[in-house]
């Protein structure tokens, strides 16, 4: 019914098999749980903030290739970014995943998720880590549902 081959690209499959930053973080300054109640995906996002800057990011949890690869790439990319830079990325990623924004500003590696916009039932998988990041950076409830 839908053309998913574009979504399950090598890079996503690779991040799924060998997720980067996949570990708990003992000295995290923020810990945020993200869940998708409808499909059961869950992850814990760990951030170590250094003032306004994300000094380190990691995650753990169980989820599909899409959410796992998304979390893997996200934690890699936001490392070293300021809050404002991360906020901009969050907005752009969400825009792309829901098929609304142009991609020009988004780092090319993240564009592999563009295909998810055609799969409304999977958008939340891709967005889950970003949602948790947003929540973590804006006070953090400790747990958010996408």
């Amino acid at each position, binding site marked *: *019914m*839908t053309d998913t081959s574009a979504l399950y690209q090598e890079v996503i499959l690779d991040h799924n098999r060998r997720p980067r930053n996949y570990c708990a973080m003992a000295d995290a300054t923020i810990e945020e749980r993200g869940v998708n*109640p409808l499909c059961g995906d869950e992850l814990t996002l760990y951030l170590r903030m250094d003032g306004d800057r994300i000094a380190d990011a990691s995650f753990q949890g169980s989820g599909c290739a899409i959410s796992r690869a998304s979390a893997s790439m996200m934690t890699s990319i936001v490392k070293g970014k300021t809050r404002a830079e991360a906020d901009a990325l969050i907005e752009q990623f969400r825009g792309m995943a829901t098929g609304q924004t142009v991609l020009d500003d988004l780092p090319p590696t993240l564009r592999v998720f563009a295909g998810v916009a055609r799969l*409304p*039932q999977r958008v939340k998988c891709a967005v889950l880590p970003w949602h948790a990041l947003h929540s973590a950076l804006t006070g953090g409830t400790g747990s958010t*549902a996408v």
Partner: protein
Amino acid sequence: MSAIVPRSDFSLLSANPALVYLDSAATAQKPRAVLDAMNDFYETDYANPHRGAYALSARATERYARAREAVARFFGVRDEACVIFTRGTTDSLNVVAAAWGRANIGAGDEVIVTGAEHHANFVPWQQIAIERGAIFTICPLTADGRADVEVLAALVSEKTKVIAFNHVSNVLGAINPVAEIAAIARSVGALSVCDGAQGAPHMAVSFDALDVDIYAASAHKMLGPMGTGVLIGRREILDAMPPYQTGGDMIAFVGDEQTTWNVLPHRLEAGTPNVAGAVGLAAACDYLTAIGMDAVAAHERALVKVAHERVSAIEGVRVHGPSAAERSGVLSFTVADIHPHDLATLLDERSICIRAGHHCAQPLMRRLGVTATARASFYVYNDENDVEQLVEALKSAKRLFAVA
């Protein structure tokens, strides 16, 4: 006045050209557009929404979301997650009485309803008051059947937790001053619950502007399908309300010992939703919007004005409720000594459908001093000829009973 929609839009009415259907306050006939929308959903995009991970299910989910948007638009609700699909008005009101009531009404508190409520907005409040040890107060009516807001304003106190009232009386067609009652409720921190079963089908409703806390309606009375209704509430109220039913779709996490809830609207919609019903209601909303709710209201007012004049001109007839200018398209009356049931049967002989009985409003019947009334109610497909036939049939019934 001719009807403001083609009779041919309604299969049942066009198949029965002689039928004079004057019972729309009980339930409305269905335009083809509503049935078509539901059939199309079943035949094109049918799957369980929310749960599937395939395109067909995504389409069903989408249909459900679009239906909620359309219904929210119709009811003037900006925050569409505050439109909860239910089984009907009765369900909606029971949800609030039980879930909100159990959490917020305590011993010695007060629950107020009006004397003109349908049983659906009377008995749930009476019962929760009994259960919680609260005082159950029945607000008196003005002579024409609306809540007496002066008395109400004097009645309320800090103990008042709920004021439940109809938008429009199903017996009298009397239109309540919703904003005034809501303001009285707000002044003492009480929940204002408006039963819109007879409001939404017949006049423009803007929930956000009405300023009530809760509004309830039934799809089947507004050209939509049976088995569907809405519960609309302000977000703070719905967010704080404990779930009424639990099960699939409304949970966040089910532990062996504790469970956490999903967000609105899901947390108040346990189980597989009735997507077809929501799609049907949305189609009905669109159909009504295309006519224009002001045109609907004007048409009914014009018909009920003629009916009021002509029916009350018959000797021995007593029409209950307000003047024609102040009522929606409902006319309740009694004819001399003829019992309303006999009247309905005699009218049925002429293919005229009216309702007879207590109209699920026994407390109001006592206040009117009758055990039953006959009721004719008008909608978009009725015309002046329907009124004419009603009047002729009433005269004929009078002759039959008088001759005896």
